[in-house]
């Protein structure tokens, strides 16, 4: 109820977000190999932090809101991390069928 966002901050953050979007797209034109996805996700995370801190007001709010959101993200990390670990465990054991014939034993 207390803090009102100044217009120049809002517009400034928007321009930074647009710039980062352009950077993300431009980065795909450079061959960075397997780092590609981490660069894209890294820039996306920076954009997400800007939106959360300024547009969603987390920087000026009761810290409890930020803690709740962060905990949500921790659970997402657990979800994705454990799922990935599990799926990679048995990839080597899968039998792939080729088209037009049966594979495996």
């Amino acid at each position: 109820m207390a803090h009102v966002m100044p217009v120049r901050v809002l517009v400034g953050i928007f321009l930074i977000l647009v710039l980062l979007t352009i950077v993300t797209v431009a980065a795909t034109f450079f061959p960075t190999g397997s780092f590609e996805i981490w660069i894209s996700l890294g820039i996306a995370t920076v954009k997400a932090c800007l939106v959360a801190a300024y547009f969603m007001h987390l920087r000026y709010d009761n810290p409890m809101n930020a803690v709740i959101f962060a905990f949500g993200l921790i659970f997402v990390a657990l979800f994705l991390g454990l799922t990935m670990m599990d799926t990679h465990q048995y990839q080597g054991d899968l039998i792939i069928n080729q088209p037009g014939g049966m594979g495996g034993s």
Partner: protein
Amino acid sequence: MHESAISGAPHAGGEGHSHGSEYHLAHHFETPRQQFDAGKLGMWLFLVTEVLFFSGLFAAYAVYRSNHPEVFVDAHKYLDKVLGGFNTIVLLFSSLTMAWGVRCAQLGQKRGLTWCLTATLICASLFLGIKAVEYTHKWDMGLYWGQAFAPVAEGALHGGHGHTAWLVYLSIPAALALLGFAVRAVINRVRGRQEAALVAFCLTLTALAFFVGVGLGKAVPAVTSKLLPAESSVPEAAPQHGQAAALPPTQQLVVGDPQAMSGISLTAIFFSIYYAMTGVHAIHILAGMGVLAWLLGRAVRGEFTDKYFGPVDFVGLYWHLVDLIWIYLFPLLYLIH
């Protein structure tokens, strides 16, 4: 600390702030501050559930991409990253107008709030228009989800007129909305109901923005295909029976037990994931547009003041989350190399 002017139950359908400064305070809260904080907390908890909701789809994406990266690298060529990037900027701008709207509400600026909410709605509509073009273009090429996946040759595409049929069907709701709100705006104007006319006018602009989005969705790829000839967004070779177009044999893997889901190529699974993620996101945009329209109606009627702007703030939080999710969807789906 109680205010001395506690006035029992708040009046329904507030007609401005002439009832006293506490008319918006619900009886089960002690102070307006507590009401606001409770509302914000509730919205943040809901946003956490939304994040976890989407993370299920992100998990599906992560599993399939990490296990079959070459399929994802190949399938991404069906997606136009310039359109995707433009959509990203449209949503970022809508976040700006939404945050600006919250600021207007905090300062009691009714006109600013009205136009910021309208601008947010217009951006949302534009986004959906571009999405409609993207989807129908894929459907013309036979790029459906799961079992229905059946890519067609480029030659067959340019010859036929099935090109715009799906787009027409998808545009029907927007066309009805455009007509309906325009008529409503005129009728309310004539009858002297200025506020209702203004709301209907803003929603008419929103419906119009859908068609602007469709126009952009068609125009932008036509322009960029001349400027960037290196990447084509359509399959290059005619498909043979039993194979998908332009994929080398190693990528045409049919995974799984023949008794179960035989015949689904992995590219089809990429598209299942693509449609699920962007489709659920689009449903969230539609729901957000409905709530924003509700806010617009309340704003025009003057229900929000510098003392009571909670709903604007909370809907703003939801809208920023929708934008946040797209910020992640865009690089993951459109920018794979």
